[in-house]
């Protein structure tokens, strides 16, 4: 399994405000997803639509695991599209929010990721080459 991704940042907003950006569709669509269906309680749906750099939509299908406003939210992460190689329910995103001064110290840990190249699964290789070629065409256009 690949090592977890750990990110940390300071946001000049209260933990309550930041927390809402993970649990309210109107707010999550401002930064993470194009569309979202969120039921923020353990076992509740965490469904998101993402737009890839290839212009295609990808369906993130997850579930909330922990919801403790305003300090902690955990949800599973995976895509229905097999070409990405992270299947629904297989990886986990843990977000911790701590007050710091007037703002929030945010930590995000994305764990249980599979090893391997992007698109290394099933039709992944051809799909990856095709997407790279398309990306090149766009870059040089």
């Amino acid at each position, binding site marked *: 399994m*690949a*090592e977890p*991704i750990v*990110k940390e*940042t300071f*946001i*000049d*907003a*209260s933990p309550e*405000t*930041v927390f*809402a*950006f993970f649990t309210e569709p109107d*707010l999550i669509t*401002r*930064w*993470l997803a194009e569309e979202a269906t969120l039921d923020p309680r353990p076992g509740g749906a965490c469904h998101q639509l993402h737009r890839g750099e290839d212009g295609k939509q990808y369906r993130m299908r997850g579930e909330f695991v922990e919801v403790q406003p305003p300090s902690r939210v955990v949800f599973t992460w995976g895509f229905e599209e097999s070409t*990405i*190689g*992270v299947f629904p329910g297989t990886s986990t995103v843990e977000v911790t929010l701590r007050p710091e001064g007037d703002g*929030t110290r*945010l930590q*995000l840990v*994305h764990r249980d*990721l*599979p*090893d*391997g*190249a*992007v*698109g*290394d699964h099933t039709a992944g*290789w051809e799909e*990856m*080459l095709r997407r*790279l*070629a398309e*990306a*090149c*065409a766009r*870059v*040089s256009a």
Partner: protein
Amino acid sequence: MQDVLDAVVEPRRREILRLVRDRELPAGEIAARFPDVSRPTVSEHLRVLREAGLVTERRQGTRRLYRARSEGLMSLREFLDGFWDARLEDLRVQAQREEKRRHG
């Protein structure tokens, strides 16, 4: 990543990657698959692929053998690393904006 994109923009280089994806091939055999391409051009393609980290080169006497490196394409972890950097930056901007809106 740009190296990788530059390497695969050329269709013949993508074809070479397909040839050596599952097995190692010597340069001569690879060149034989492109009868309309000069040998130096095929060598150049192999050099570009090697420098982009997409193939490994192994020498056996005077022969050079090539094999695709699947880790040469961006790893999932690298991709998500960049993804979260970008998304969290957007979150910061939007949350700070919303905070101002709510509390002045």
